[in-house]
Each structure stands twice: as structure tokens, then as C-alpha cells.
């Protein structure tokens, strides 16, 4: 113990921060793809698909992310797949994001008036053509603010990857604190760095939402 906070410590934290960004991007990209699938299933015409995806969403949203992470980490371990911590964390965050994004996007798809489906149907468009050409472009506008908002959620959640030993920002802060034992300073700096990542996104999400609301009020 002992010693004081140096530039090297800061560089170490910044490296951790970079891994936080990498993990967030990975989780968001994978979760986005899987979440799109969840959204398709949640809005499918086949009842069974809707039920399966409903149960999936309920299960994931009703379980702590930390537990999902442990299940993935230990589960794949005992089945013989030795995942590097980055991938274990990435897979867990993908599962977690897919449930939440799928549910957010389902809400946006359902917010597009039923009559748009009807009009497309009357023009002999298939369900898939209707979705791609008519519904999704309109849903995307509504979906942007909450999706950006959820990105903040993902970014904060990556801190849990520290628990399985992946050296991102939180883990880096723990390592530095273990040698210096100045928790207010070290975790304070880590907090500031997280804030620097998340706050702009939060602001962006809110301004997008305001613009959307103004647009809607004018249209009405």
C-alpha cells in the first residue's frame, strides 16, 4: 500500500476505459442483432413464436445481469467451452440487451398505426415488404431516443464484466485502488470517466426525444 496517484495510473484507467467502450460496442452490436430477432418474434403472427419470445424476455428481465453473467461464465465453462472473459461478458450483455432492445423496439413497431398495415395489405404488399418499407422506417424514428438511452444502460452494465476478471474501467480502478488505497480519488476518477462517456449520450437521447415530440405535436 501507499504511493500516490501518478500519470501511469491515469493511463492504466484510460486503457480500461477503452475496453469499456469496446465491450459496450460489442454488446450493443450483438444485442441489437439479437434484439431485432426478439422484436420480430414478439410481433410475429405465429402465436408460438410470440409466446416463446415473451417468456424469454420475462426471464431475462426478471434475472439480475450479474446472475446471467455467472450462468454464462460457469455454464459454458463446465460444458467445456472456455470463453475468454471479454467474450463471456459480451455474450451475457448480448442476451441482456436483446431482451430489453427487443421489447423497446416492439413498442415502437406497435406505435405505428394499425391502418398503415391495413393500407399496405390492400396494396398487396407482403408482410415482410410492409415491415421493411412501411413500418420500420416509421418505427425507427420513434425508436432512436430510447435506443440511445439504452446504450447508456449497456455502458454502465459493462462494469459487471470486472467480476469475471475482465480489465475494463471498473476492474482497472479496483487494481489501482488495491495498490494505493485512495478509494475516493480512484473511484471518483473512474466515475468521472464513466460520466464523460454516458452523459453526452443521455443528453443526446433527451434532445432527440424533445425533437420527436415537437414534430409530433405539429403533425397533430
Amino acid at each position: 500500500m501507499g504511493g500516490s496517484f501518478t500519470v501511469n495510473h491515469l493511463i492504466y484507467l484510460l486503457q480500461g476505459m477503452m475496453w469499456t467502450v469496446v465491450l459496450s460496442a460489442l454488446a450493443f452490436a450483438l444485442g441489437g442483432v439479437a434484439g431485432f430477432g426478439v422484436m420480430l418474434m414478439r410481433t410475429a403472427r405465429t402465436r408460438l413464436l410470440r409466446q416463446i419470445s415473451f417468456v424469454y424476455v420475462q426471464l431475462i428481465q426478471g434475472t439480475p445481469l450479474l446472475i446471467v453473467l455467472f450462468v454464462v461464465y460457469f455454464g459454458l465453462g463446465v460444458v467445456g467451452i472456455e470463453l475468454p472473459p471479454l467474450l463471456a461478458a459480451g455474450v451475457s450483455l448480448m442476451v441482456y440487451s436483446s431482451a430489453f432492445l427487443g421489447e423497446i423496439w416492439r413498442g415502437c413497431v406497435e406505435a405505428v398505426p394499425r391502418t398503415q398495415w391495413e393500407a399496405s395489405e390492400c396494396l398487396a404488399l407482403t408482410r415482410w415488404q410492409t415491415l421493411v418499407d412501411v413500418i420500420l422506417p416509421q418505427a425507427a424514428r420513434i425508436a432512436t431516443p430510447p435506443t440511445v438511452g439504452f446504450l447508456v444502460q449497456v455502458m454502465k452494465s459493462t462494469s459487471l464484466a470486472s467480476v469475471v476478471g475482465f480489465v475494463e474501467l471498473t476492474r482497472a480502478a479496483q487494481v489501482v485502488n488495491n495498490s494505493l488505497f485512495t478509494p475516493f480519488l480512484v473511484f471518483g476518477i473512474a466515475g468521472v470517466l464513466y460520466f464523460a462517456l454516458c452523459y453526452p449520450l443521455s443528453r443526446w437521447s433527451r434532445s432527440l426525444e424533445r425533437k420527436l415530440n415537437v414534430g409530433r405535436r405539429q403533425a397533430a
Partner: protein
Amino acid sequence: MKYNFDFASLQEYWPEFLRGALMTLEMTVIACVFGLVIGVLCAIGRRGKRKWLATLCGAYVEIVRNTPYLIQIFFIFFGLASAGLKLPIFAAAVLTMVFNVGAYTAEIVRAGMDTIHPGQIEAAEALGLSTPQIYWDVILRPSLERVYPSLSGQFVLMMLSSSVTSQISAEELTGVANSVQSESFRSFETFIVVAVLYFGMAMMLKFAFHLFGQAIFPRRRRLGTPL
């Protein structure tokens, strides 16, 4: 590769799981009660005329909402310890939960208050109600009824997030799971069992909030429609 599940060897640990689950619920209930109080005060503070108070409350909400809970836990728990204040782990864990959920609650309550039409407040003023009376009867009660679904959803999320307090060795459900898996060497099974327990608790909590909502909002109970 084949894996033989062995849930039987976990049977002897069920009292441990039960104790952990109860502690999780206990922590959640305390955190929600105090979090609600802080959230409401903070939401009022942000609307108030005192600029410095509004800024302070706003900063608190933004800081909490834009940093990970785990960092908040480490900051508070290790920070206080280094400053010489050694709290019992249970108290420290609940303190971090209150700190965290208070900010989210503040944001939800504020959104609810924003939906109250200015005409309502003018009408109350015209009837001669005092400011605290207006806040309680005309602003707060309908706001809380309106945001009750988001609020209870947030509290369920808090219950799930409380698993993170295992990282400062709180003996709640996840903490228990950690010690059970290191004793039994059945990590996978342990966390599956715990996942199921959390899921059950989340469902239970949702149902409890539903009943509670029926009890405290008579309009909702009688009409069954959202306000």
C-alpha cells in the same frame, strides 16, 4: 461434451438460499421506502425556486444515472471506510441502494409532476390552499398514481441490481450463491437455482406492487383505468 447436472447436492443449502433471498427482499424494501422519500424531495427541489437547490438535486440525479452502480458502491463503501467510517456491510449495502434508487425515483416522480396541468395548481391556489397542501393533494398524489407503474418497475429493477452488493460481501442471495458454489463446486447449478429464485422474487414483487397499488389508489381500484 456431456455434462451431468447435479441439483441434488444443492439441497442441503436451501436454508442458506432462503436466508439470502429474505435479506435481498429486506434490503429492497428498506431501499425503496427511503429511495421514495429522497426521490420525492429531490423532485420537489428541482422544481423549486431556490436555484442552488435545484442545481444540487439535478447534479445528484445526473451523476447517479450516468455512472455504474458498482462504481457507486465502491466509492461509498471503500471511501467511507478509508475516511474511518466503518459501517456494517448490511447498512453500507442499503445505503448505496438508497443513494442509487433515489435518483431514478426523482426522475420518474419529476416526469409525473410535469404532467400536472398548470390549471390544476391555479385552481388550488384560487381555493386558498397553501403551498405544502397543493404539493401534497394536487401535485404529488396524482403524479404518484400516474407514475406508479414505472416506479414499481424501477423498484423491481433495484431488487435485481442489489445482487451487485455481493461485491462488497453482502450476504444477500448472490453473496450466498457465491459461497455455496465455492463449497459445493456446482457453480453452474447454483447460479441456475439462484436465477430461478430471483425470477420468482421479481414476479412476486410485481404482484405485491399491484396489490399495494390497488390498496393506496382508490380511484384506480374503482375505475381500473390509468389516470
